């Protein structure tokens, strides 16, 4: 009778072979170098809640047949949102929950990562490293009722021929550019959301809302569109006509 160890040999060999055939993930921690936006901050205090799904988000993606990427963007997107929001508002309060029990905030923003897609040059139609990032943004009132919800996406591309780094460097660079693009779109898209604009304009003092026109802020408060906070129903989005104020 063969010793027990000998019986195990085929299983060990099989396991080694299977491990050799399987796809081992490529770990990549991404950082961001987003510059400080050139903006006049809104004279408002907003809250921001970074939930567990944001703080713990590590993405896995099959960018090629033999590659599985495990991309850690936690530090990058935290830096990104902190930089963006601090340039957009006078004061930003980070909240432990998606509502503000004590902090005096106008609204609470909750960013949530949705997806990250990657393409390597050999699979990309443009022959470059490509990255797409997508986040869902929720705007809540101070008690946590949803005022608006939308998605914002960013795209980044890194030419494969222009640098000597490996795949990790190429993908990291493409993700950084995608974050940068997302930041720009968030700043401009934010001010174009009717619900967001109405809520924030309503929270501003009339003189402050009027002065936005010449301040360099991304937000414009249309005199007929401003609505007092609380006037819009969180569920229906309907507006109480009595609560409509003009900022003239």
């Amino acid at each position, binding site marked *: 009778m063969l010793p027990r160890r000998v019986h195990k040999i085929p299983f060990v060999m099989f396991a080694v072979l299977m491990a050799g055939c399987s796809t081992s993930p490529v770990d990549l921690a991404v950082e961001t170098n*987003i*510059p*400080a*936006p*050139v*903006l*006049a901050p809104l004279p408002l205090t907003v809250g921001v809640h970074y939930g567990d799904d944001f703080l713990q988000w590590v993405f896995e993606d099959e960018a090629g047949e033999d590659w599985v990427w495990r991309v850690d963007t936690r530090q990058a997107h935290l830096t990104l949102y902190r930089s963006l929001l601090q340039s957009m508002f006078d004061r930003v309060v980070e909240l432990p929950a998606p509502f503000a029990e004590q902090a005096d905030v106008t609204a609470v923003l909750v960013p949530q990562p949705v997806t990250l897609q990657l393409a390597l040059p050999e699979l990309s139609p*443009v*022959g*470059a490293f*490509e990255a797409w990032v997508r986040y869902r943004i929720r705007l809540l009132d101070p008690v946590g009722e949803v005022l608006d919800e939308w998605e914002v996406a960013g*795209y980044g*591309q890194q*030419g494969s*021929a*222009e*640098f000597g780094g490996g795949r990790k460097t190429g993908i990291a660079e493409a993700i950084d550019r995608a974050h*940068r*693009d997302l*930041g*720009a*779109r968030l*700043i*401009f898209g934010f001010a174009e959301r009717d619900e967001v604009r109405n809520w924030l304009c309503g929270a501003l003092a009339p003189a402050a809302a009027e002065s936005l026109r*010449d*301040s*360099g802020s991304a937000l414009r408060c249309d005199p007929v569109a401003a609505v007092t906070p609380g006037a819009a129903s969180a569920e229906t989005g309907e507006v109480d006509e009595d609560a409509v104020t003009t900022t003239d």
Partner: protein
Amino acid sequence: MQSRPLISCLHVAPALVLVLTACTTTTRIDNYQRSSMGAIEHGEAVVVLREPHLAARETENDFIDCVGKALSRSDDALRVIPRGEFVDGMYPYFEDGTAPVSVEGVSKLAENPVARERMAGMNLRYLVWIDGFTANVDGTGSMSCAISPAGGGCLGWTAWTNEGAYTAEIWDLKLGIEAGSFELDARGTSHLIGLLVPIPLLANVKGNACSAVAHWIAFSVRGG
């Protein structure tokens, strides 16, 4: 009897001439247009940016940086703002998804006092958009390399052709006009000859295109 060398100078010289001429690059300027562009004045700056393309092949940043540096070297009096410094300093207004698509867009941006103040600090006169890229378009030949306990080496010949096509559009921000544009094509064939050791004879298509683009931008902004 005196033995003749296997490879004489008579053999080498034509081969050398052939390969040296074969790897030259040709550049061609085309469709040069210039409107009433004023000459750049002392202290005014130029910035060279890549034209934004979303989900299409973008101009390489290293090419744009090369043009900026070549432009700066071409004339000490010409103040060139590095691309990275400009787009970072103007974030988020000159990103791929947000950059102005016309010179009127820059004028509109100047209505924003924060952006206007930042741009005024740069004293930017000309904004140059570059579009295009260099790609490998053709290849031929073959080379094999081997290694053994007795030694190793390569034998054969391979060649490939690179082609670059670029366009430049120049905006005069002081006059608020599209002041000029041109197209540039560059082409060159590189060779790799295996004579025990691989000998590369490279055609610098991208580098030559970079120098030529910079030359024509300098010519345009200096007033011809």
